[in-house]
C-alpha cells in the first residue's frame, strides 16, 4: 500500500514542468502441472520516479526507495538531465506542453477477505481433479492462477493528482491430448478486472467451460490442416480483438506515427470497410467498466475514449501531451507506465471494434468455403500494420456449416487491407484481457469486440 496523497512533495518541484509518481506493482502466481505445484511465488516492485519537461526535452529518474530523500533525489536527477539537454540543444526552446488538470481517485481493492496461497492451490487442485476424473483422454494439464495489482499515486506541476489501484486476476487452463504420439494443445483464460477474491470463488463454476474446452481439443485431435491461401473467414471476437489492437491500434499510437507508422499517411482516409468502427475506450462502455479502466493517465490527463476508426475512416490518433502538442491535437490520456522505473509511453487501454448488426450464426451460414477462426496464439504486428498470428482453434466452414476442427495454423496480412474486406460484423461484444501488450514495457490492456467476416491469408500445412 502506497501513500495516496503525495501533494506535500510539490514544494520540491523545480520551476520546470514536473511529474512525480509513486508506484507499487504486486503480483502473485501459482501453477499446477499435472497436479503438482511447479510455481508458487509473489513479487512486489515499488519505487518513485520523476519526469521533467523543458524546452522540448525530458529528464527522467527513478529510485526503488519510497522516502522523502528518494523523492528529492529523483527530482534533482531528472532536473539535472533536462537542464543538461537544454544547454546542448536550444533548437526546441520555447516548446510548451498542453496543460491538463485532473483530480481523481479510484480504488478497486477487493472488499473480501484475502485468501491464503493454500486456498488458491486447493482451488486449482479442485479444477485439476475434475479434469482428471471427467476427461481421461487429457494427457497433460496446466492450471495457473495469476494476479497483478497496479497501485499508483501521481502529482504534476499543473496540479493534477490521482490515485489508482487497478487489479487484474486470471485463471489459465491449458490442456493436451494425444494425436499419433504428438501432443495437441488448447488453452483457455478466465477472469479480468478485480483481485483473485473477486474473480474466483467456486471452482465448480468453471466445470462446464472445461468440458467445452476438452470438446474443442478432442475435435482438434481429429482435426485437419487448413488449406493455405487467401480465404473467407469469420474471425471470432478474440482474434478480431487482438488484430484490432496489434495491427491497427499500435499504428495509431501517435509516438509510432511520429516514428513513421503507416497510419500517418491515412488520416481522414477510408482505411477499412464502412462497417468497421474502432475505439480505444478509457474506462467504460455503456456504463460497464472495461477490463483495464484508466481514469487519469500517468501525465495527469483525464482519460478519454479515442475513436480511431469511424465507419471505416481513420479519425484520430492516441496521444500523450508531447504528441498532442506535435499534432496540434488534445492529449487523450493514453500515457501509461508499467513500473515505477518506466517512463510513460502512449499505450492503448481497451481497444475494440464496435458491434454490428449481424448474428454470428448467420455469418457462419453465409460462408460457402472458409474457416471460423476462434482463438489466437502468439503473434505480432508492427507499424506497417502487417500482422501474423497463430490460430489455436478454428473450424472449417463448408456450405455454411461448421466442419472439422483445424490443427494449429497462422493468419497473416496487412491489417488495413484486411479490414477493407470486412462485410459482416456480429452484434455481440466480448472482452479479453489476460495477455500483456509489449512496447518496451509490458502493459495490461483490454481488447475485444464482435466477430467479423473478412478475407485473410491463412497458413496451411
Amino acid at each position, binding site marked *: 500500500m502506497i501513500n495516496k496523497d503525495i501533494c506535500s512533495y510539490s514544494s520540491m518541484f523545480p520551476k520546470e514542468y514536473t511529474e512525480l509518481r509513486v508506484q507499487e506493482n504486486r503480483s502473485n502466481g501459482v501453477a499446477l502441472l499435472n497436479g*503438482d505445484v511447479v510455481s*508458487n*511465488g509473489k513479487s512486489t516492485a515499488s519505487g518513485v520516479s520523476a519526469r521533467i519537461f523543458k524546452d522540448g526535452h525530458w529528464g527522467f529518474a527513478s529510485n526503488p526507495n519510497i522516502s522523502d530523500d528518494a523523492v528529492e533525489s529523483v527530482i534533482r536527477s531528472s532536473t539535472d538531465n533536462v537542464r543538461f539537454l537544454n544547454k546542448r540543444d536550444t533548437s526546441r526552446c520555447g516548446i510548451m506542453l498542453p496543460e491538463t488538470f485532473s483530480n481523481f481517485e479510484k480504488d478497486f481493492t477487493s472488499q473480501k477477505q484475502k485468501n491464503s496461497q493454500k486456498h488458491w492451490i486447493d482451488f486449482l487442485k479442485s479444477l485439476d481433479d475434475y479434469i482428471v476424473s471427467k476427461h481421461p483422454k487429457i494427457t497433460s494439464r496446466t492450471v495457473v492462477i495469476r494476479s497483478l495489482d497496479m497501485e499508483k499515486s501521481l502529482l504534476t506541476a499543473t496540479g493534477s493528482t490521482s490515485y489508482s489501484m487497478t487489479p487484474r486476476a486470471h485463471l489459465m487452463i491449458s490442456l493436451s491430448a494425444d494425436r499419433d504420439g504428438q501432443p495437441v494443445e488448447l488453452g483457455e483464460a478466465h477472469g479480468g478486472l478485480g483481485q483473485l477474491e473477486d474473480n474466483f470463488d467456486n471452482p465448480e463454476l468453471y466445470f462446464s467451460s472445461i468440458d467445452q474446452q476438452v470438446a474443442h481439443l478432442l475435435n482438434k485431435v481429429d482435426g485437419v490442416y487448413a488449406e493455405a491461401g487467401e480465404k473467407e473467414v469469420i474471425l471470432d471476437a478474440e482474434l478480431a480483438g487482438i488484430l484490432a489492437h496489434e495491427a491497427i491500434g499500435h499504428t495509431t499510437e501517435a509516438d509510432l506515427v511520429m516514428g513513421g507508422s503507416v497510419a500517418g499517411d491515412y488520416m481522414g482516409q477510408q482505411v477499412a470497410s464502412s462497417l468497421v468502427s474502432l475505439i480505444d475506450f478509457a474506462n467504460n462502455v455503456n456504463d460497464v467498466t472495461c477490463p483495464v479502466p484508466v481514469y487519469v493517465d500517468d501525465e495527469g490527463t483525464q482519460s478519454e475514449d479515442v475513436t480511431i476508426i469511424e465507419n471505416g475512416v481513420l479519425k484520430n490518433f492516441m496521444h500523450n501531451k508531447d504528441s498532442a502538442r506535435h499534432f496540434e491535437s488534445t492529449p487523450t490520456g493514453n500515457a501509461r507506465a508499467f513500473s515505477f522505473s518506466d517512463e510513460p509511453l502512449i499505450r492503448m487501454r481497451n481497444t475494440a471494434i464496435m458491434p454490428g448488426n449481424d448474428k454470428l450464426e448467420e455469418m457462419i451460414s453465409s460462408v460457402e468455403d472458409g474457416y471460423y477462426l476462434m482463438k489466437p496464439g502468439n503473434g505480432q504486428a508492427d507499424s506497417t500494420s502487417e500482422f*501474423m498470428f497463430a490460430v489455436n482453434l478454428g473450424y472449417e466452414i463448408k456450405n455454411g456449416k461448421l466442419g472439422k476442427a483445424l490443427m494449429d495454423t497462422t493468419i497473416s496480412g496487412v491489417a488495413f487491407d484486411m479490414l477493407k474486406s470486412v462485410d459482416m460484423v456480429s452484434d455481440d461484444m466480448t472482452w479479453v484481457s489476460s495477455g500483456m501488450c509489449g512496447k518496451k514495457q509490458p502493459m495490461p490492456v483490454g481488447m475485444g469486440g464482435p466477430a467479423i467476416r473478412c478475407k485473410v491469408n491463412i497458413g496451411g500445412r
Partner: protein
Amino acid sequence: MENKFNNISDKMFTLLKEGEYLTLSFSSENTQFIRFSQSKIRQTGLVDDATLELELIFDNRTCGEAFTLSGDTEADIQKSQVVLDTLRSEVVQLPEDPYIVLPENNGSSCDIHAGSLLSVEDAADALTPAMQGVDLAGIFASGKIYRGNANSLGQKHWFSTETFSLDYSLITEDEKMVKATFAGSKWNQSEYESFMAASIKRLEFMKREAIKVEPGEYRTYIASPGVRDILDMFSWNGLSEASIQQGQSSFGRMRNEKYNLSPCFSLNEDFRSGSVPRFNDNGEVSPDVLNLVNSGQLENTLINSRTAKEYNVISNNAGGGEGIRAPYMAAGELPEADVLKKIGTGLYLGNLHYLNWSDCIGGRITGMTRYACFWVENGEIIAPIQNMRFDDSFYNFFGENLEAVSNKVEFNPEVGTYESRSLGGTHCPGVLLSSFSLTL
C-alpha cells in the same frame, strides 16, 4: 552492491530454523537511457533498480516472494525478515513437491566484467555527431547490471557486467528503414563512427525503389541478425529436454528419428564471453561450453535439475525454462567480403521479423523479411525488396540447403527493457542457403 547483497544474505541465513533452506536471488541495474528521435536527443533518464527474491524450502514444500530493495541495507533486512515470516506461514500449508530440487553447496563464484563506458556527461556528445544528416530513432542504454545468488548451505555467486547498446533505426524519407544495434562493454568512438557510417551507407540502398519478389524458392544469404532471430526460436519448444520429453520440441525428430542437420551447422551454449552469468536461479553453474548441435548432430539438450529428476536424466544446470542463455553458433569459411558474389542472383536478408512456429514438430518457422533485405543479381545489390513472408523448416535451411556459413561471428545483444535491462545476446555468423522458401 555485492556487499549489500552479502550483508542481507548473511543476516537472513542466521535466522533460519531447522529443516529450512533459503535461496536468495538478486538482480539490479544502474542504467543511463537516452532516447533519440530524428537524430536528436529527446529524453535522458537514470534508472536505479534492485530486486531480491527469497525462496524458502521446508519439508519438500517451496514458496517464494520477490520485492524491490530500497538501498538502505537495514531497511531491506527488515523487509526480508517480514517476507521470510510470511513464507514460513505459507509453506507449511502447501502440498509436497515431488520434483523439488534441494539446494546444494557446489562452490561459489565471483565473475566481474569491468567495462569502459561513456560517462553520463559525455554520452550525448559522443553519440550525436555521427548520426547527423540522417533520420535516426533509437535508444541508448549504458550501465551496470548485477546478478547474485546465495543459499543457506553456503553457496554464493556474484556476477556483474558493464555494457552499452545503441539500438536504432535509420529511416528514409519514404519510411524504409535500416535497423542496427551497436553494443559492447568497451566504448570505442572510432568503431562506433564506422558502424554508424556503414548503416548510413546501407540506407542509401534502401532509397532505391523496392522490388516485389514473387513467392518461391530463392538462393539466399541471411545475415547474422537474421540468424539470431532463428536461433532465438530454439529456446521455445526447441532444445529443452522437458519439451522433447513432452513431445513438443522441434528437435524431437533429431532425437527420435535420427535426423541430422548440415555438417556446417554447430550450435553451443558458450558462457566464455561473460555476457550472462553461468549460474541459474538455483545457483547451479553451467559448464563453460555445452555442445548442443555439433556438425549437424544433436549432442546435448538443455536439462535443468527439475527435468532431470522428473525424467531421470542428468542435469547440465540449465535455467528454469531450459532456453539457451548464451547461444554461440560456430563460424564457417565463407568470407564476409565474398557473400554477394556467392549469392550470385538471389536474396540478401539483413533482418527477419515476427518469427513463429508454423509447424513446430516439423521445425517449420514462418516470419517476415524486414529492413535491410535486398535483391542481388550477378553479385551486386540491385534494390531492396518489398517485405515478404517466409515459411521454411530449419531441417531444410540448416540442413541440406545450408551451403556455407560466414567466417565472422557477430554478437547480437539482447536490448529488451521489459521490467529491467536484458543481459546477454547471441553470437552467430550469417548463412548462405541454396534455397529458402518465400510464401506470400
